[in-house]
């Protein structure tokens, strides 16, 4: 299958980004280097092209009913202009995807889903729509830029008539940036303060280069998916296909907080209610390597020489100066205990640590 390209493909070429396939898209992995980009987001700011993300809109009087039926979080709690992290569920209570649900009006919701899952998500939602809400694949109508980092607000503030500082974390507004009509959401996937800005694809390049220019003095640089991955891993945010998939229930991935069994029936809720009474088979843990070496996705985790689990994501954590990993382990393990990770021929000691690995000093 041919790789899709975002409206910023030419811009990435111009900036000499290293490109690679991700979720069916040809995406920038890095510009100046993953470590430098990672640290720019932790200390100043970074700008990401995340236009590969999928958008699905749900419209009409039954819009809320459909969102409530297919997602595990309680969208009825959302006010207009508010966003919520949620899961798109199978009948077995596992993840078709994770997503952000935005309440646009009382009869319109915008779902932002993973690039590689968007057609599966769209089909899944249509197949579980007995209430006949209107579902629309709006991916081609949106470009998305993520402006992330402690200086993101300072960069954005003068570029929009809307008082950006007044947008609370996980709220959004429809206004403009650099004169370009845009949705401004105070959301992100880096563990820092920041904004995800949605605009028309035809405006993406103007917005991209405009933001880079206006933010340069504050240290803003373009960042690729390489840094996006190490940033989200430090913040212990799940990545579909790694920590969550069609075989994962929310609680084992420590996502019980997005699973509102009290809201009424939804896809998978019966199975999840039953599972609630059962002990977990596995639980997601944070590991910090105690010996030189990097745990990579899929590496076995051992305890006293016995295989007990598997790494779901592992990488260097540039802001921590350590190598970290997320891993499935039996749920009886506790922080502070030691395990070993089988790194090719060597078995390396790792400590179980509290999640997230990294937490920013002041939340927005």
């Amino acid at each position, binding site marked *: 299958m041919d790789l899709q390209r975002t409206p910023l493909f030419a811009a990435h070429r111009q900036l000499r980004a*290293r490109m690679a396939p991700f979720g069916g898209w040809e995406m920038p992995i*890095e510009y100046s*280097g*993953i*470590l430098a980009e990672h640290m720019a987001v932790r200390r100043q700011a970074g700008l990401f092209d995340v236009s590969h993300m999928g958008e699905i809109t749900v419209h009409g009087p039954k819009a809320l009913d459909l969102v409530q039926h297919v997602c595990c979080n309680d969208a009825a709690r959302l006010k207009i202009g508010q966003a919520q992290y949620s899961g798109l569920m199978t009948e077995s209570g596992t993840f078709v995807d994770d997503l952000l649900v935005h309440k646009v009006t009382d009869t319109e919701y915008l779902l932002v889903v993973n690039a590689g899952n968007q057609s599966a998500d769209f089909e899944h939602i249509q197949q579980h729509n007995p209430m006949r809400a209107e579902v629309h694949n709006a991916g081609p109508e949106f470009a998305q830029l993520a402006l992330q980092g402690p200086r993101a607000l300072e960069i954005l503030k003068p570029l929009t008539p809307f008082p950006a500082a007044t947008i609370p974390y996980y709220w959004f507004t429809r206004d403009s940036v650099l004169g370009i009509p845009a949705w401004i959401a105070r959301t992100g996937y880096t563990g820092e303060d920041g904004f995800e800005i949605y605009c028309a694809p035809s405006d993406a390049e103007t917005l991209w280069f405009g933001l880079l220019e206006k933010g340069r003095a504050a240290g803003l640089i373009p960042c690729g998916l*390489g840094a996006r991955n190490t940033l989200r891993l430090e913040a212990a945010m799940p990545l579909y296909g790694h920590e969550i998939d069609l075989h994962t229930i929310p609680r084992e991935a420590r996502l019980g907080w997005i699973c509102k069994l009290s809201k009424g029936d939804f896809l998978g809720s019966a199975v999840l209610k039953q599972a609630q009474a059962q002990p977990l088979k596995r639980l997601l843990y944070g590991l910090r390597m105690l010996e030189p*070496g990097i745990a990579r996705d899929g590496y076995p985790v051992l305890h006293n020489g016995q295989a007990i689990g598997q790494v779901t994501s592992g990488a*260097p954590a540039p802001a921590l100066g350590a190598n970290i990993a997320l891993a499935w382990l039996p749920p009886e393990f506790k922080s502070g205990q030691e395990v070993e990770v089988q790194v090719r021929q060597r078995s390396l000691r790792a400590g179980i640590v509290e999640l997230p690995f990294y937490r920013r000093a002041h939340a927005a």
Partner: protein
Amino acid sequence: MEYPANYQFTKEHEWALVENGTARIGITDHAQHALGDIVFVELPAPGAELTAGQVLGTVESVKAVSDIFSPLPGKVTAVNSQLAQSPELVNQDPHGRGWLVQLELTPGASLPRLLNAAEYAAYVAEEN
């Protein structure tokens, strides 16, 4: 990119500098650039015997693990111990301070024909 005229190269993007029966081995500027930020280097113990084409170690970037193959047969007489603390030397100076290991070439062993600098530069240009 400049490739030193007295170095030899492999299509797997290693280099060898052969002098008086010893060879210093590293990865090329092209290789370090393709890998991105190098964060960990795993090298053999001194004394290890390597055949040409055998894995001599691994170089890890933020995203990936790459095996490094020995361009020549020989016994490891030294490894670049600075890389344990400063793996970024491989990025900063791949043909110099970012060297990986030194081999004492196996006496009498037939040596594979490696690429010279011009051939390697042409090979890389073609690969791109």
